[in-house]
């Protein structure tokens, strides 16, 4: 079996098929026009290329003015969340072959946040909400001389929400956030969940109080857009519902 393979195609071993793909990018430059426009770029891509690789090819070889954020390029830093074919994804985790390269692939900035240029949005409203839920350990009393012990079961309670990379894919996929920028948004609630259900943390009731706002968890309509958008596979809507439940058990 191996011998036949070697005999028939010795030269093509390890070769990756390449194809041309059209990227339809939403361009915006406030110094030129107040209106944003679509621009098509056709690039040669390999079967293993991601959308980010195609964006790089455009920026490096075709149009250096194309602006987008990216840092680690490996799905960890959360810089390059964009709307690809109408869905929020990380450009560095989305393979071109998975988003139907036969048709033009649309690439837009994430919705609900002010666009600065091309695919770059102002993340400040997003991070302001994140800061408001106090994403740090709150304790009382003396510092222990050893580590703060936590059982594996207690750790597992909030394991899912520790995975957040703050890419804003969930918050900017939320239809409530699109029309109401004052809404805390899924990401802030997920990061509050991470501390509310941490057995070592004692600021739970403060965080619940902050999120028991008109613009807090009660604006969630459980449309599951955030769960679908999360590139880390966090069950965002479930986390929001757990925060709601904690509030109700606290109130009654």
């Amino acid at each position, binding site marked *: 079996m191996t011998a036949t393979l070697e005999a028939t195609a010795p030269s093509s071993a390890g070769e990756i098929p390449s194809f041309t793909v059209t990227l339809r990018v939403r361009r915006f430059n406030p110094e030129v026009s107040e209106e944003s426009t679509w621009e098509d770029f056709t690039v040669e891509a390999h079967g293993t290329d991601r959308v980010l690789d195609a964006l790089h090819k455009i920026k490096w070889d075709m149009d250096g003015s194309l602006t987008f954020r990216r840092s680690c390029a490996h799905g960890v830093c959360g810089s390059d969340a964009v709307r690809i074919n109408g869905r929020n994804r990380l450009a560095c985790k989305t393979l071109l072959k998975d988003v139907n390269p036969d048709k033009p692939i649309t690439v837009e900035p994430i919705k609900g946040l002010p666009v600065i240029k091309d695919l770059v949005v102002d993340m400040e409203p997003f991070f302001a909400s994140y800061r*408001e839920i106090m994403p740090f350990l709150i304790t009382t009393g003396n510092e222990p001389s050893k580590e703060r012990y936590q059982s594996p079961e207690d750790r597992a309670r909030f394991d899912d929400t520790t995975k957040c990379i703050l890419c804003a894919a969930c918050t900017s996929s939320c239809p409530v956030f699109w029309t109401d920028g004052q809404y805390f948004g899924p990401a802030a609630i997920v990061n509050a969940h991470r501390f509310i259900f941490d057995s070592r943390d004692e600021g739970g009731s403060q965080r619940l109080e902050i999120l028991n706002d*008109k613009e807090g968890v009660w604006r969630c*309509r459980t449309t599951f857009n955030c769960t679908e958008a999360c590139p880390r596979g966090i069950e965002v809507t479930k986390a929001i519902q757990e925060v709601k439940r904690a509030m109700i058990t606290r109130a009654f």
Partner: protein
Amino acid sequence: MANATTAVAKVASPRSPYARRKTTRGNYELYSWVFMRASGVVLLVLIFGHLFVNLMVGEGVHAIDFAFVGGKWSNPMWQVWDLLMLWLAMIHGTNGVRTIINDYATRDLTRGILKGLLLLAFTVVVVLGTLVIFTFDACPADAPAELLASFCTA
């Protein structure tokens, strides 16, 4: 120093000056969320009970006439049933539409007008409905006897 301050003020902020308009904490949204669930469950019983009694029991839908309604509203049990159904359904529905207005109306003025109209509609229906349930006269004086409930002639 004063010149420096004015110079700084002239430079536009590079970031959007994001600020929460005001904190709107409180248990109002929590209670309204719980109310929606609780009233929904109660309404299921009330509405399907109502439909069953009106459309299925006895002659079913053919039994409904002035006498049938008059008979029901002479019974305190059905008065309370219908009153509860009216109030719960109206508050449940109004609260639902309120959240929809909050979700879709972006401008404060639009939201205010829509909520005002909603409150007006709510008040008219609830006041009128409550009035009818309690002041309904099952036996009007000059009506033909065959249209009235059996207890009128007694």
